[in-house]
Structures are given as C-alpha cells and as structure tokens.
C-alpha cells in the first residue's frame, strides 16, 4: 500500500551543520516515472498522479500560486486514464482536510482567468469538472 505523507508531520528541518534543509513531506508523493533525454542528459520524471496531488496540496499564494495551479492543469492535460486511476487511489488515502483542499484547488482552477504562456484553464473546464465529479464520488 502506498503511504501518503502529511504536510506537517512529515515536513521537518534537517539540521545539518553544513547545509540545513527544509524537507517537504508532500514530495514523498512522487514516484519515479518515464525517463526522457534533454540536452544529452537522461532525466527520470515523476509520475503525473503524485506530482499532480503534490501541486494541488502545497500551500501557495498570489500570482505564483496561480501559476502553480496552471502547472497542475498542464499535468492534468497530460494524464491518461491510468494516471487518473492512480490519482483516485492517492485521493482515497488523503486525510479529510487534504481532500477538501485538493477539491477546492481544482474548483479554483476551473474558475481561473488565463495567464500568458500558460495552459488555458477556460478550455479544459469540462475535463476539470469530470475529475471533480470522480473525486467527489470517492469522498462521499
């Protein structure tokens, strides 16, 4: 069974004397996906479902927050049915507050104005609505 990390319980400061780090628990949602080659370098990408959940749950504000939501939209556009099923599996394991936040951010995404050079949320509202219906069906 896939463990779903919590944003607070699994987010901590790694008190390394040389390089202290803030470790974000939600990044634990990421699983290895396809490998691509970019500029001669092979890069292992995260699978879309975990990255999408992470994008929809990480707290954000202002214009950067809107851009991050549009990144989530870009991921959603790339998702196939298998990815959506994986997303549903992750969603089922989230605590209530995280489920609520994920649904609220998806709804917000559906109501956003387009931003230059970013995926246009107004063109995929039907897809977002379909995903919201699937996830709300699981939440009941």
């Amino acid at each position: 069974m896939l463990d779903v990390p919590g944003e607070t319980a699994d987010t901590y400061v790694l008190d390394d004397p040389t390089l202290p780090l803030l470790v974000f628990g939600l990044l634990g949602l990421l699983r290895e996906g396809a490998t691509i080659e970019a500029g001669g370098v092979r890069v292992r990408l995260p699978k879309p479902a975990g990255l999408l959940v992470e994008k929809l749950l990480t707290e954000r504000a202002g214009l950067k927050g809107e851009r991050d939501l549009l990144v989530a939209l870009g991921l959603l556009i790339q998702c196939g049915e298998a990815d959506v099923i994986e997303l549903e599996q992750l969603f089922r394991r989230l605590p209530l507050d995280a489920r609520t936040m994920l649904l609220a951010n998806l709804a917000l995404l559906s109501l956003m104005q387009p931003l230059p050079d970013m995926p246009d949320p107004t063109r995929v509202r039907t897809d977002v609505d379909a995903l919201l219906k699937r996830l709300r069906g699981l939440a009941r």
Partner: protein
Amino acid sequence: MNSDRLHERLRGIRSRVAIRKWEARQAMHAGGVWFRLELLLASTRRALVITAEEAAALRAAGFEPHPLGGEIEPPKSLFVVAEESVPALMAGREVAIQDARQILLAPAMILIPF
C-alpha cells in the same frame, strides 16, 4: 540558509495547515459556504444573470433555487437548470464564470451545468 529561519518557515507551515484543517471541518457548515459555492460554479458551464422578476417567474414555474444561495448574505437565487429546460423567453445576461465580481453582485442567476 540559517536553520533558525527554516524552523521559522516550518512553524509558519504548521500554523497554516492547522487553519486549513479547521476550514476543512467547516466545509459542510456555514464556514464552508465559499468552498461549496466554488464547487457549484466549477460544475457550471454557463451563468446567466436574471432579474428578481425572472427569478420569481422561475419559482412560479416550479423551479427550486439551490439551497446554497440562501446561505449567502445577502441571499441569492441560484437556479441550477439544464440548458434545454431554461424557459425560452428567459434570455438572461450571460457572464463569464471567471468574472467573480459580476457573479458576486448578481442577486439571481441561472447556472447551466456541464
């Protein structure tokens, strides 16, 4: 980066998550009305602003307003009506679903779902 600043950031994250958990518990109560309104609007393909007279005519024709509209102050008459069921003479004034100002100002609306 100094680890004191990281600890400060972590405290900030934890306090905001605590607030979010409280908001999530409110989701189906009065405090969650905006969350539920967002969900309702996200499932809306088109929004038509109508007059109070048109809202009264819809009620008289048997259309029930969505209960969410009554939870907002001032109350709004929100009718969720399938496109084919909108009375022919009721044109309304279409507003973009992204136009939060127009949506919030409208006293009555027809919301056509996907």
